């Protein structure tokens, strides 16, 4: 019998640290996309709150906390990160298991904002992009979801097939920012 070995999306490339920024992989967990059925937005939000303790996020926002988050990832769509989805949610939303389809990384440190400023065409400074804020945008030429999870830390979701490029682009920018200190 073949022994299958689970490999993480960023497979041994992380963590890395350059200057005042550190990039680490977030261990794969349960990822479920939630798409509220027509007219069921409020009911889904309530079901999500009673089952997992967070409401359905508004556009450009994320709800929940470490271990169980709901991140807005597009028009009429959020990603539940962490918990096994409660079966009751299915009455109000189309749910798709997306575990293993994404790479998840955490970029943190005093220089994290400057690193992202080199790659992302959206203003992610603390003054306008606070904890709980989230964007769907591009990192270089790659579609990503970026969420601020603390004053100095960002949670980034990218397609798993692009994990190598994600790490390379982020690390190149981290080195560049560190070199200018």
């Amino acid at each position, binding site marked *: 019998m073949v022994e299958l070995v689970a490999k993480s999306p960023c497979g041994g490339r992380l963590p890395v640290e350059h200057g005042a920024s550190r990039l680490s992989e977030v261990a794969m967990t349960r990822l479920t996309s939630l798409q509220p059925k027509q007219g069921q937005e409020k009911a889904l939000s309530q079901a999500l709150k009673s089952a997992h303790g967070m409401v359905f996020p508004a556009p450009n926002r994320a709800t929940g906390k470490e271990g169980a988050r709901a991140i807005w990832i597009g028009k009429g769509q959020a990603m539940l990160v962490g918990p096994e989805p409660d079966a009751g949610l299915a009455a109000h939303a189309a749910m798709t298991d997306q575990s293993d389809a994404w790479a998840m990384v955490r970029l943190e440190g005093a220089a994290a904002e400057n690193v992202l400023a080199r790659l992302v065409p959206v203003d992610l400074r603390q003054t306008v992009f606070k904890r709980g804020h989230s964007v769907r945008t*591009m990192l270089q030429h790659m579609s990503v979801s970026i969420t601020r999870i603390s004053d100095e830390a960002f949670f980034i979701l990218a397609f798993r097939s692009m994990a190598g490029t994600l790490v390379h682009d982020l690390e190149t920018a981290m080195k560049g920012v560190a070199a200018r200190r």
Partner: protein
Amino acid sequence: MRIKCPLCGERDRREFYYVGDAVLLERPDPEAGDHAWDTYLHLRDNPAGVTRDLWYHEAGCAAWVVVTRNTVTHEVLKTELAEKRRRKLVEGAS
């Protein structure tokens, strides 16, 4: 050029994909006749000035957006979710 996505806010034009004239939302009735369908499919104005077209927020929220813009100045005058525009058309308002 920067386009204001009704959901995401103002974003770089690179995040969007151009889909064509917003007349695509005004699909004629299947029985409307050859003339209406020919016009719908093939006849487009090419104005030096204000135009209205569809953009897809490809690298963002994946919404279809109706963008009213000026082809001469590149000014973006108005943006609206295609979904809303379509609902207005169906309900008979302009």
